[in-house]
């Protein structure tokens, strides 16, 4: 694709606002909006983590009385896991890597002054925030929050009498998700347009940092997936409130016929997972892009196989839409389609493996600097491998018979989609904090945070694989009703204690974050000696990102240790040495 002239888009740049409200609250600046998304995700992750803490306590001490909350009942446990899953998936894993860091750094890394549609960008955030508040409000209405799990399978999620929390709480839950979808769709349009139209002179697609590729493909996935989820959510709201029967056949709940007939519960599952599986990649792709970036920066080496990495991202994006049925092997879907979905799912493992190979190839022959962003990037690779390796088990319908809906699945997706993505967010925070706030984070605290979190999350999620193999079903609030689960109680106690330590370690991170904003060491403009465009501008970047300058790009993003260069890195804007490789 031809490179576009940056100056043609100067009309997108807008004058710096003066008042506090326009500058920090209803801001059009992608950097402020990025931070707003980031802090939204930060509050959400603590809510989600607190819910998981209560879950772990309940599993080990079912009758324990929690201060202020009292004893957790089995239905409360299901509410906790529903809200934990929903908040974490939408308002953390989708919000921070894309809305947060993507917003802040995509325009800067491609040399643009802002996003293509700043007003739309502002709207995206405020709709997302509204969605978050609606989600939280479900806790406080009569009946409380829903208990149907983050996947919200009808009829449980469609019939108010099917359980506590399935009344107003469930309506709020669906409404919140629909709002989130609107925000995500607007944001996706913005990311795609910005990437295609706003690149600086010389920033060809194949000179974009892999972070930008990841944000770009994530946005395309979002555009295609959230529209489907939005529609599915509206149909669910209609079933719940307008007497339609999209998802509900004739059912008898508590001995009462509830007035539906002819609907298909499997329709929701198809629509939900058509969104739900790409969502996994929406959560993980930005982390993949970022860790590719960091492994190159801190190994002082070009990324191994840049083109293969780009093609792998595109392949994951494409195949990601053809595998949703692997969530439904046991659902009553045709067993023949299960076979087809299984093949596609195994196929998507190939580009993931290519990426792992290239990450190892990047380390090979490097000169590794172990700063905290690099530790989290290496941790990401380890977690990605560990979480990925259980994928081929679950991708085979035959092995899914014993493993589906067991703790094995919980362990699998937490390692790869949860913790690995969170490691991406941590790595991004430690890496870009100096650019965002002009100060360095405390390295010693960062390293303590890394070791505790890395070992801690393995101690939490690896044992879940064992429990799942032994037949421990997911979403069980107690292990006392099935005799064969009793031998798994010690394993679950271990998980709970590991969770205590790991959760406690997150306060080191929060302390470091806020303390360093005030008292961290002043950061240089390019503290990590990296090559991409965010490091050529001031710290923090000015309102139009480059202070009236228009960057011109001459090099690829990963020119480290170029033979004959004066330093071991060549900025993308450095015209003196044009690397041959691209």
């Amino acid at each position, binding site marked *: 694709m031809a490179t576009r002239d940056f100056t043609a888009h100067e009309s997108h740049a807008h004058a710096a606002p003066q008042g506090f409200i326009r500058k920090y609250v209803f801001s059009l600046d992608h950097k402020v909006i990025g931070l707003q998304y980031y802090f939204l995700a930060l509050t959400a992750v603590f809510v989600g983590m607190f819910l998981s803490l209560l879950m772990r306590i309940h599993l080990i001490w079912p009758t324990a009385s929690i201060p202020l909350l009292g004893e957790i009942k089995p239905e409360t446990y299901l509410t906790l896991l529903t809200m934990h899953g929903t908040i974490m998936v939408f308002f953390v894993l989708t919000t921070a890597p894309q809305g947060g860091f993507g917003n802040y750094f995509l325009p800067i890394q491609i040399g643009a002054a802002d996003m293509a549609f700043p007003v739309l960008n502002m709207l995206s955030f405020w709709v997302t925030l509204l969605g978050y508040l609606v989600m939280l409000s479900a806790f406080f209405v009569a009946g409380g929050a829903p208990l149907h799990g983050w996947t919200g399978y009808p009829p449980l999620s469609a019939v108010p009498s099917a359980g506590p929390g399935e009344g107003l709480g469930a309506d709020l839950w669906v409404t919140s998700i629909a709002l989130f979808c609107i925000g995500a769709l607007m944001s996706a349009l913005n990311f795609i347009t910005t990437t295609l139209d706003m690149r600086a002179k010389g920033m060809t697609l194949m000179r974009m940092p892999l972070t930008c590729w990841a944000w770009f493909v994530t946005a395309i996935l979002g555009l295609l997936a959230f529209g489907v989820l939005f529609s599915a959510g509206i149909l669910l709201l209609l079933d719940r409130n307008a007497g339609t029967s999209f998802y509900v056949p004739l*059912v*008898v709940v508590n001995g009462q016929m509830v007035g539906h007939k002819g609907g298909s*519960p499997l329709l929701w599952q198809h629509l939900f997972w058509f969104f739900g599986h790409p969502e996994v990649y929406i959560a993980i792709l930005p982390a993949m892009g970022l860790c590719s970036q960091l492994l190159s920066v801190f190994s002082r080496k070009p990324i191994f*196989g840049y083109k293969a990495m780009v093609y792998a991202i595109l392949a994951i994006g494409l195949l990601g839409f053809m595998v949703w049925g692997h969530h439904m092997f046991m659902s*009553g879907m045709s067993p023949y389609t299960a076979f087809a979905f299984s093949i596609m799912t195994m196929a998507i493992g190939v580009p993931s493996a290519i990426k792992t190979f290239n990450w190892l190839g990047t380390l090979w022959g490097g000169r590794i600097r172990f700063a905290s962003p690099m530790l989290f990037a290496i941790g990401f690779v380890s977690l990605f*491998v560990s979480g990925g390796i259980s994928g081929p088990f679950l991708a085979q319908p035959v*092995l899914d018979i014993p493993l589906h809906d*067991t703790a094995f699945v919980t362990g699998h997706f937490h390692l790869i989609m949860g913790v690995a993505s969170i490691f991406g967010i941590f790595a991004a925070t430690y890496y870009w904090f100096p650019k965002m706030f002009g100060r360095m984070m405390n390295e010693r605290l960062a390293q303590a945070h890394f070791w505790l979190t890395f070992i801690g999350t393995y101690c939490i999620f690896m044992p879940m694989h064992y429990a799942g193999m032994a037949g421990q079903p997911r979403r069980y609030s107690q292990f006392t009703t099935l005799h064969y689960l009793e031998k798994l109680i010690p394993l679950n106690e271990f998980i709970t204690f590991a969770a205590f330590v790991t959760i406690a370690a997150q306060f080191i991170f929060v302390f470091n974050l806020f303390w360093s904003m005030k008292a961290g060491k002043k950061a240089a403009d390019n503290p990590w000696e990296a090559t991409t465009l965010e490091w050529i501008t001031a710290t923090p970047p000015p309102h139009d990102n480059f202070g009236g300058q228009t960057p011109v790009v001459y090099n690829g993003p990963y020119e480290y240790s170029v033979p004959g260069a004066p330093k071991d890195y060549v900025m993308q804007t450095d015209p003196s040495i044009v690397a041959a490789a691209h």
Partner: protein
Amino acid sequence: MGLVLLIVIWLITFISSYFFLAKTWWLPVGASAAAAGIDHHFSTTYILMGTVFIAAQVALGLFAWKFRERSAAARYSHGNNKLEIIWTLLTAILFIGLNLASGSIWASERFRPAVSNATQVEVTGMQFAWYFRYPGPDGKFGATKPELIDPSSGSESAVGLDTTDPASKDDVVTGTMYVPVNREVEVVLRAHDVIHSFFIPQMRFKQDAVPGLAIHMHFTPIAVGDYELTCAELCGLGHYKMNGMLKVVSQEDYDKWLAAREAEKQ
């Protein structure tokens, strides 16, 4: 720092692998005809993926330590296409091959209907219990009606049996599942209210029961004994206690049991 990373990553890898290899927690002992094949394929997958897991983690730790900051300059290389192709092909062969290898087991489990002389059991899930219905000597399940369903009754009316239908006269409804050993069981799965999932770990059996659908499945128990069964799909506040028992008995004992239930009905 590189050395610490190596030690920690290796320790995590070896400790994790130890518990898998020692089978400290493993699949429960299989008791159905399909279990051996499924377990064998599980082990095959386990050995192959376990090897990849250990190789990748060991390499990661090793590289972190070997290429820590040192005096030599980093290698300037943008990659190696030949290696990319080899790696891609090997992974593709491994993953697709594994998948094809398990295809025949899946086909025999799910593509063919139950044999004609299979023991017939209708399994109905409702919040929060399983009910099992046997067609009786006439071999026919009697009609059920949704308006007759009364979950609190704990017996025939729990599944809404229409007693005016002649075929329902000899139907037996129980809360415990009895089947004879070494004979295929045809299960017809139904649900009245929300989705449940019929899970018998030792039979390597799992299938969702979906309102509006009658899903036909089969399995063959090969050892006499009591096997716990449970619900594997989130179905509401009592999900965790939606358990039951499968009793696999000799054909003789099964016939006796069924005759006694029929006698009770008269």
